[in-house]
């Protein structure tokens, strides 16, 4: 990891098109300003980590019986279904369940 020391108001330039400015420091907090092209994704690490964790947990937790239980909880709004479901069906892959054979 490259480590640089900067003073308030000083900048870092990355790759010609990303500019990072140290705007303010107060105790433990550092306020940073970033100028970057629109196609550069910037987010707080926590958000990234939170989604990553949710993704991993989704896979870890799921089991088929539980999935079937969830399917059968009658809370979904079936009236919404038809149009969107048709759109979905056009892009989904059907499973040949063993008991269909």
């Amino acid at each position, binding site marked *: 990891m490259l480590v640089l020391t900067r003073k308030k108001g000083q900048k870092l330039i990355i790759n010609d098109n990303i500019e990072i400015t140290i705007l303010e420091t107060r105790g433990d907090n550092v306020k940073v300003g970033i100028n970057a092209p629109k196609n550069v994704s910037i987010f707080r690490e926590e958000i990234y980590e939170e*989604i990553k964790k949710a993704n991993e947990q989704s896979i870890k937790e799921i089991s088929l019986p539980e*999935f079937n*239980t969830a399917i059968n909880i009658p809370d979904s709004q079936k009236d919404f*279904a038809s149009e969107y479901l048709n759109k979905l069906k056009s892009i989904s*892959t*059907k499973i040949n369940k063993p008991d269909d054979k």
Partner: protein
Amino acid sequence: MKINTSRFGEVEVDEELIFNFIEPILGYENLTKFILLDHTPDSPFKWLQSAEDPNVAFPVTFPAFFGIDYQFVIPEEKAKKLGLTNAEELLSFNITCVPQGNAQNATVNLVGPIVVNMVNKNSMQLVLTNVSFSTKHKLFNQTIPKPEKPENVLS
């Protein structure tokens, strides 16, 4: 082509229906090919199954089915990257977490929706910033009555 899955065995897939993740599902950066598996027709749940790793399958759903008021804006540069030319081409869904033994407490991640261009199948997991959504929004509102505890429990 045939795809191996740990839950459903071998699945025959039309190559046209394979999604190409041009930005990753966070934590699964090495997987780019996914399919949407129709577990039960007319169910609001589907599986987002990896075509490369048989063990990776996310249960996904569509918040609108559950009456969740959910709208987000796709950043212009992401829409461009996906090759979207109009909203009709867009399909979006969200990864759910169904806790073991506790399906009624299932949650849905509203912060990281999966978006798919239905025409060219380019896909990505968006990271929504400046939104008040939760990564653990409860899917089911209604409380399921629990079986009553046996009365004669000795303490």
